[in-house]
């Protein structure tokens, strides 16, 4: 693995959740290129959505207690780096929950944009994104290709040793399969109708309870992975 660009100084350049939510609604952010299922699009202001979602997000008692236990372990998680873009439904789903997780464990959380003024296409380029160094380090690999998938949530101990990395969505959410089905043509549909229906159905799914079921699953996946790392390193319960 390449040397990590995440130093205390670099980490400190990120935004807190509150700063990030405020930033989302700024002209500076809204002027940046956004994205929808159909591709490039003007950004929508998601700041109120993110604020409201954080306010109603509650971890379970067991999740809170688990995070506290982890944070108290020698070498346990102390910092959380998140790479996000507000146009991403996966980011909107998970980032408020990640902040709740950080709240529970007393973790320092810092958020970084993935893109510059334009959507990232291809490999991260320092000339077009201020955070290309971070995104290049956290590229995901799938089917022999590399992707700038978001969100990225990288957990570190106090000394910035990486403990675990969560990327994009929980394993139980087979997003590619579902979205392909939703956006696939139905009998008798024109291409335009497929596009319109597929978009409507996808966004309706984001408003269904399964959106939060997957957010909950992401938290469970993170806690279980951090726990496993801790136990294998000698951590004890009781």
């Amino acid at each position: 693995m390449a040397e990590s660009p995440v130093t205390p100084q670099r980490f400190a350049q990120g935004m807190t959740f509150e700063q990030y939510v405020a930033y989302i609604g700024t002209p500076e952010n809204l002027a940046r290129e956004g994205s929808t299922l159909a591709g490039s699009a003007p950004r929508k202001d998601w700041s109120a959505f993110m604020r409201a979602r954080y306010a109603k997000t509650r971890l379970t008692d067991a999740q809170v207690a688990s995070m506290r236990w982890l944070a108290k372990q020698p070498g346990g998680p102390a910092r959380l780096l998140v790479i996000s873009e507000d146009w991403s439904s996966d980011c909107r789903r998970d980032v408020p929950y990640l902040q709740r997780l950080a709240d529970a464990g007393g973790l320092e959380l810092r958020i970084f944009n993935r893109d510059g003024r334009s959507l990232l296409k291809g490999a991260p380029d320092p000339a077009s994104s201020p955070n290309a160094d971070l995104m290049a380090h956290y590229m995901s690999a799938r089917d022999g290709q590399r992707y700038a998938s978001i969100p990225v949530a990288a957990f570190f101990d106090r000394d910035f040793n990486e403990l675990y990395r969560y990327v994009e969505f929980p394993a139980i959410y087979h997003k590619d399969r579902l979205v392909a089905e939703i956006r696939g043509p139905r009998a008798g549909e024109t291409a335009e109708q497929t596009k319109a229906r597929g978009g409507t159905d996808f966004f309706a799914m984001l408003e269904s309870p399964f959106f939060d079921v997957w957010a909950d699953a992401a938290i469970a996946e993170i806690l279980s992975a951090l726990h496993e790392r801790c136990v294998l390193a000698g951590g004890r319960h009781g």
Partner: protein
Amino acid sequence: MADRLTAQRFAQGMSFADYVAFAGSPENLKRQGFDIRRFAHVTPRLDWSGFLKDRHAKAAPTPEQAAAIQWLAKQPGGPAEGGSGSSVAGPRVSKVLMIVEDWSSDVRRDLPYIARLAEAGGLELRIFVRDGETMLMKGLPEPGQSPNADLVQRYANDKNGQRFATVPVAVFFDRDFNELYRYIEYPAIYHKDRLIGHLRTPRAGESDEAMKARAGAAIGALLESPFYDVWARAAVDEILSALHERVILAEGSVGGPPAWGPPRP
């Protein structure tokens, strides 16, 4: 899979309340059990009925999990409430069959949560025990070895080229007993073999007895930690997500529109 499960066989299982009562009964307690804290068979069994009852009381699904199972239980594909004989058997979850043993920490973890999930969705839950009078140690039960050998065989766990009588098994069906999803043993995020294997690995200079005592205490503490509930809730998420996927893929295959949004009336 050959024949479908019959309604008559399903009806022979216990409700959650019946199972908890059975768990504390002399009939159950005289059966051979196992205590993970001691890595030993125990007869009579430990009485877990109070534990299961208390755990069930605390295992409420989150509001989103409750809404999700209600949505799944209201999908089209079956007849109107109370009807029967529809030729359109869709992925509308309606029934859950579980195979359990109370000596299993995986069962004690998941059964109360799945029972609460079934209650939230109005699903009919029926519970069957895996073993007869003695604990099945390997392989699958022969007919006569367990009153539910037929179900254990039918829902055996295929893993690494072998078949195991793993518990718990939770099988979700539509109203016509078409199987929609099968959950087995523990959620995918819980790497139990790795964790327990690590805890049971002898430390330098440790005798077998000392290892058993240390590992038994460590596993006992793990089962009392909050991660036990994190995994239980993850199991519910895994079940809901898989049933949801089944609905979406099935609907697409018949050319109908995906059933998003609020639950259908």
